[in-house]
């Protein structure tokens, strides 16, 4: 059966590996990207995400594995024949050429007819707000203008697949925030398939349809931003995503004749549903804003002392002493001060249980459904 165009797989990488001088930079990655989809490759620096990008673009040859575009293997096709667009981290604007010449560059290289060249360039100059800059030299542009020019220069060639390598890392925070929305809008308008490499979780969360979290050359999880945040499958993903850092408390699971119970240092014998798993010691991951906090005791709460208040502006983060561990709780500003007594509780459905031996995560409620 022929797949409908909208769901066609644009990019697929199969067991992609890259070894540099004995060091494995990419360790057998698998990934698929549908047409028109925005996928972010998210990970800390040195995790292999830029190497993956270079393998897809064709600047590097994989040690093993395959890259497919529209189902056709392109692993041994040279860069210039892949019809993939790429925006480099530093934009690589031709500083001696004018903005217009920069935009025309790709079309000239591809020997597109003059009339069409002018038309396409005018169209994308308009889209990216470059009309006032067309005669400026590349060397006169600031970072955000360079970024637009680099983006327009590649979009004008209508690439099958657009690769973006940390395109916002040179911009300041305010500019980044406005460009995120703009970039997403352009991507949606053009139905452009995008693979976006970043170490910034906010960029990945706000723009992506799918996020692939990468660490140490492995893709750990590919999911929607929502699931990456709510249902991390490994400790790394749980701790890499989210601000402030997810709480990791020690806990123990044990079974009695009629129930499976979970105890932390402060909360005792919380009831887990049967069929969840085995007894043993775990780490309990809970995000700061999933913790309910009140001034007065309430059902299921335990009392804790506020050690430190961190001001995030719109929110405050309380560092409280939970058993002998530290825990962060998100509250509205002015809720409590250092030294105050407050009461906290959380729902087990928001909890990620990390198996300390494997760093894999079990989600109690998800497993309940299947049980």
């Amino acid at each position: 059966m022929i797949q409908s165009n909208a769901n066609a797989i644009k990019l697929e990488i199969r067991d992609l590996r890259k070894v540099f001088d004995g060091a494995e930079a990419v360790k057998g990655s698998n990934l698929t990207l549908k047409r028109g989809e925005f996928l972010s490759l998210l990970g800390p620096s040195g995790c292999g995400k830029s190497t993956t990008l270079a393998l897809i673009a064709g600047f590097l040859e994989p040690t093993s594995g395959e890259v497919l575009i529209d189902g056709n293997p392109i692993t041994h096709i040279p860069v210039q024949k892949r019809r993939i667009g790429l925006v480099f981290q530093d934009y690589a604007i031709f500083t001696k050429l004018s903005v217009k010449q920069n935009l025309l560059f790709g079309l000239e290289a591809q020997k597109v007819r003059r009339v069409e060249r002018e038309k396409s360039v005018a169209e994308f100059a308009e889209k990216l707000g470059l009309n006032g800059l067309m005669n400026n030299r590349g060397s006169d542009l600031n970072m955000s203008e360079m970024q637009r020019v680099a983006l327009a220069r590649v979009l004008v060639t209508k690439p099958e697949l657009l690769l973006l390598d940390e395109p916002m890392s040179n911009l300041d925070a305010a500019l980044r925030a406005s460009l995120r929305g703009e970039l997403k809008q352009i991507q949606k308008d053009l139905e452009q398939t995008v693979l976006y490499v970043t170490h910034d979780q906010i960029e990945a969360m706000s723009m992506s349809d799918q996020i692939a979290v990468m660490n140490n050359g492995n893709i750990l999880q590919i999911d929607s931003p929502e699931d990456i945040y709510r249902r991390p499958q490994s400790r790394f993903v749980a701790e890499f995503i989210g601000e402030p850092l997810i709480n990791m408390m020690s806990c123990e699971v044990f079974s009695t004749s009629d129930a499976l119970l979970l105890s932390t240092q402060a909360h005792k014998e919380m009831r887990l549903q049967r069929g969840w798993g085995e007894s043993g010691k775990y780490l309990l991951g809970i995000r700061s804003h999933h913790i309910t906090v009140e001034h007065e005791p309430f059902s299921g709460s335990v009392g804790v002392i506020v050690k430190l208040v961190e001001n995030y502006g719109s929110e405050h983060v309380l560092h409280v002493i939970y058993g002998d561990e530290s825990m962060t709780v998100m509250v509205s500003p002015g809720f409590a001060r250092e030294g105050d007594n407050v009461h906290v509780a959380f729902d087990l459905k928001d909890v990620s249980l990390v198996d300390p031996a494997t760093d894999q995560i079990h989600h109690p409620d998800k497993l309940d459904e299947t049980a």
Partner: protein
Amino acid sequence: MHQTKIWVTVLKRTAVIIAAIIAFFPIYWLIATSFKPFEEWASWPPIWLTDNPTLQNYRIVFFPDMAREFATQQSGSLDYKVSGSAWKAFKGSAIISIVATFFSVTFGTLAAYSIVRFNTGGKNYPFQFLTVRMVPPIAVVVPMVVLFSILKLSDTYFGLILAYTAFTLPFSIWMIRSFIDDVPAELEGVAMIHGMTQLRAFLTVTLPLVKGGILSTALFIFILNWSEFLFALVLTAGNVVTVTLQVANYVSASSGKLYGVQAAMGTVSTLPVILFGYLIQRHIVRGLTFGAVKR
């Protein structure tokens, strides 16, 4: 406080002036001597600026036959019989220096590109090139004479071009390598992403950016070739003459070295280098930033 600043400035300027005098003195002496008549070439005390300027030395360089007649009329005061011709020497030096510089810079550019972009030969390869220059040329002269005579390259233009290219190539590679290194690979990456082969990307993107560097290298190599003496001396036998050899040819049996004539030849032979330098000077400026890439 202000006073000390002035003294520092005065001291600095004085040092610069002294350094400039030391640097320019040989040039001054060369030019001054080239206009001196025979008696003043090596007189004591030295004559700084002659009161009897003459073009006789230049006449001998450019019109040796006329000069000889003139000397005869002066009742043999000086034996002006010199071997070789300056014209032939200029022709020889021009052919050898230009062709050898062209080869050296062309091969140097290609090799440097390969080393920078493809890491050809590994990390230590560029240093291995430099070891060629660690051997004093005099040490390889004898084997080269033997080799050249076996290969029938002695006393040919091709032979000297080959030798000069080989001996200046390390400099070419080393210098051009640093210029190419300054061009971000991403700029070529953009060209390749847009459908250019790596060779076309190199020619259209990188080469225009390193043009100034390549021309500076060419000037440097040209000066080396133009002023080379040792190989020219041992690898030729009269058929091929270079400017440096011709300077040494201005010797007479009765009067020894003809310093004035040598100075005239020396003065004239610096002109092509100055001309070349003047023509490319606007390309030598390297202040322009190549790409928008932060290093």
